[in-house]
């Protein structure tokens, strides 16, 4: 399997902490989600991959053997930031103008088409738009380009439920169009909303990759446990995450530990990505209560 991004010995020092990733490979042709708490380093990582922040040590390779200095790489990466990066006084016309100026593969007709689909007003300036509409505008501008990799920092956060669904559809359409060549990476806090498009998950905690893998593999690696209060204490020591009340408990444990729960009055089921993420993050945060 090819990788669209290969990160090696990545270290980025910031004032209060550092992001340290010895090795990370993002498979080509899939949608990858970066999951983590606020300040875990998701944005740092995405910005480094996008070539926006160059002050890190380590190497990042793109599309097998390209580096960022190849013109090809930037031409084939579409990036949306978590805040609007257009000048506030721009209207649709200026955005088209500047995008055509900056990107050879910008398709003006497609941009207008997507804007109409998103119901974006074309006579308002960027400053007058709501956060959701600003995000739509950025999304329209990257989907209107011919690219091989989309990097999106928190694309779902400012969007309404209908629009999130629409975003998922567009991501899937994008990946389907590429037939194995096009990949999408996004960071998200809305794991449940994005789960249906997530193929590969990278869970980041405190600047390190806590867990990564294909979602289906993670769902086999971990298992969700539910049980009565009576066996909560006995089960607790095998669990990654635990939450319980007066009536019962639930948590996540490694599938290989599932045997140890045999004989207890518990039910096992396949966990959702959301459950896995929370469990891994809690475990890394060390606040297993």
């Amino acid at each position, binding site marked *: 399997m090819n990788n669209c991004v290969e990160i090696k010995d990545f270290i980025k020092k910031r004032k209060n902490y550092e992001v340290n990733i010895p090795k990370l490979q993002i498979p080509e042709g899939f*949608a990858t989600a970066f999951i983590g708490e606020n300040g875990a380093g998701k944005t740092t990582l995405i910005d480094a991959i996008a070539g926006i922040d160059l002050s890190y040590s380590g190497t990042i390779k793109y599309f097998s053997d390209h580096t960022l200095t190849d013109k090809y790489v930037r031409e084939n990466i579409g990036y949306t930031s978590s805040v609007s990066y257009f000048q506030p006084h721009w209207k649709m016309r200026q955005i088209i103008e500047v995008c055509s100026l900056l990107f050879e593969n910008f398709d003006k007709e497609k941009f207008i088409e997507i804007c109409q689909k998103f119901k974006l007003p074309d006579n308002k300036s960027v400053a007058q738009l709501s956060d959701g509409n600003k995000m739509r505008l950025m999304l329209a501008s990257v989907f209107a380009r011919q690219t091989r990799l989309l990097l999106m920092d928190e694309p779902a956060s400012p969007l309404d439920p209908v629009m999130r669904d629409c975003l998922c559809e567009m991501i899937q359409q994008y*990946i*389907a169009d590429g037939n194995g060549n096009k990949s999408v990476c996004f960071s998200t806090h809305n794991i449940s909303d994005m789960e249906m498009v997530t193929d*590969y998950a990278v869970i980041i905690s405190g600047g390190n990759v806590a867990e990564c893998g*294909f979602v289906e593999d993670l769902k086999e690696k971990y298992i969700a446990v539910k049980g009565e209060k009576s066996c909560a204490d006995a089960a607790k020591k095998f669990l990654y995450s635990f939450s319980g009340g007066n009536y019962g408990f639930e948590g996540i444990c490694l599938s290989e530990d599932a045997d140890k729960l045999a004989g207890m009055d518990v039910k096992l089921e396949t966990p959702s990505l959301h459950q896995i993420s929370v469990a891994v993050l809690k475990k890394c945060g060390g606040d297993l209560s």
Partner: protein
Amino acid sequence: MKIMQNSGEPIYKQIAQQFREDIMSGKIGQGEFLPSVRGLASSLKISVITTIKAYDQLQAEGLVTAMQGKGYCVNAQDSEMLREQYLRKTEESLNIAIESAKITGMSDDELVEMLKTLIEFNKNN
């Protein structure tokens, strides 16, 4: 193709099952290709990796073969052997049902009646 998101049955198993039926019944013939992985994922609104897992399962069962850069191609089916396999499976399952019925104290007639009802029910769905 119907996918139930909350049925408890993993989605990849649902997909594999439906293709299995289609291949067995001859709806998808030998030499034909399954829909592209990413195309199917997009139209079913599920992740690509789920589709790949379903296809991999079919491949492990020997129903299809992955062809580099082309997709998944349906193999020639040894129908007699498969039939044999499924007959055995049916027999096993029915045996389990009979055992369970014994525990509850159901009479033989009641069991047959129940089976008939279930067959009817399945047809209607």
